[in-house]
């Protein structure tokens, strides 16, 4: 079985940026559940900064059992312009953009993921560079679970799992 998980590149997940009170406890818990499910041998699909988040999540796993299949941990997230307090301020286009992106991810619809508007995603500070390789992984996959879907700080995060 091939297992694929998606997590956001939220830097607050890094141990170096840990606070006394976790600002993203639900997100962290969802990420932990997803990466534990991935099994032992995990390939990371991420740009440099997202790779650090993925490596940190994998490093904190305990008691992971592998089943010999291949696993992928993909780092991406939606718009960072979903409120006036968001990193990229409020851009109303973020809501339709994220709604469409969520639909494509959950379906999953690889063709739609490959067709995401790169100019708009750039304008909305969305981290979508890995959607093309993710689409390739999802060609024969089905959704296993939605572990997280929220925008606590004006950035759209998903933690999703697929299998094929």
């Amino acid at each position: 079985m091939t297992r694929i998980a998606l997590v956001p590149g939220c830097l607050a997940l890094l141990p170096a940026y840990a606070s006394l009170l976790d600002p993203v406890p639900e997100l962290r818990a969802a990420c932990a559940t997803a990466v534990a499910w991935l099994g032992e041998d995990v390939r990371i699909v991420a740009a440099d900064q997202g790779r650090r988040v993925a490596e940190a999540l994998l490093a904190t796993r305990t008691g992971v059992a592998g089943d010999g299949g291949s696993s992928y941990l993909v780092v991406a997230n939606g718009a960072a312009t979903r409120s006036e307090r968001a990193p990229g301020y409020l851009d109303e286009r973020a809501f339709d953009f994220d709604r469409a992106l969520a639909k494509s991810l959950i379906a999953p619809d690889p063709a739609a993921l490959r067709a995401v508007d790169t100019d708009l995603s750039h304008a909305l500070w969305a981290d979508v560079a890995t959607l093309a390789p993710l689409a390739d992984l999802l060609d024969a996959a089905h959704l296993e679970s939605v572990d997280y879907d929220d925008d606590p700080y004006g950035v759209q995060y998903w933690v999703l799992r697929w299998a094929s």
Partner: protein
Amino acid sequence: MTLRLRRHTFADDQPLMMAIVNRTPDSFFDKGATWAEDAAFERVGTVVEQGAEIVDIGGIKAAPGVEIPPAEEKARVVDFVARVREAFPDVVISVDTWRAEVGDAVCRAGADVLNDAWGGADPELVDVAAAHDAAIICTHTGGVTPRTRPYRVEYDDVVRSAIEDTVAYAQRALDAGVASESIVIDPAHDFGKNTFHSLEITRRLGEMVATGWPVLVSLSNKDFVGETLDLPVGERLLGTLAATSVCALAGARIYRVHQVPETRQSVDMVWSIAGRRRPARAIRGLQ
């Protein structure tokens, strides 16, 4: 160094608030506000609520005044210590006394720390601390008599004097059998010192921290703050907090204070700047 205050242990990266609780009618800052036992007890409840780990109960004001014999000092503090011990089992109880006789009585009533603000004037105090496995605060006064003001005191090097005297006192405590993790040193701002001395002690506090003994600072609303800023008692909080911040950056472990929340905020902020404490909750730029 891990700190043990009798039955209470603290990690070496944890700064501690020691709240002043006066059972005196005439201390300089509160002017008798907690002279009545119930008022003092209420003050303990308040500072515990505010997060103070330690209460420092004193029955004699530091400044000169009416002589308080040991029996009167004990009448002011011993039963009160027992009452606090019973009501607040988790708080560290320190008693501000230089007398071995009083120290013995308060330890029997449940005190954890003997805060000898007068630099070992009673040589038997260390034996009392050892006998009860209590902690002791070793202060520097330049050898002055308890409850006297400094008068034309000068030092070749006040910091060297403070280090030599407090470390020697710590060694004396150690030799008497006080546990090494239960000994704290205190340069004692204003005690046997003019304002210039206290400023220099503050500026060079890192040298005291470098001895390896945990350092207590007692800065709260003192005359060196008032003289530096030309402000009366009651208007010295900001100056106190500035001095507190300098001592915190140097690594002072215990802060003897009147105002707990304000001092806690200052020390937490500096502790985080120094990289010893994580921010409470950081998300800015990390989303």
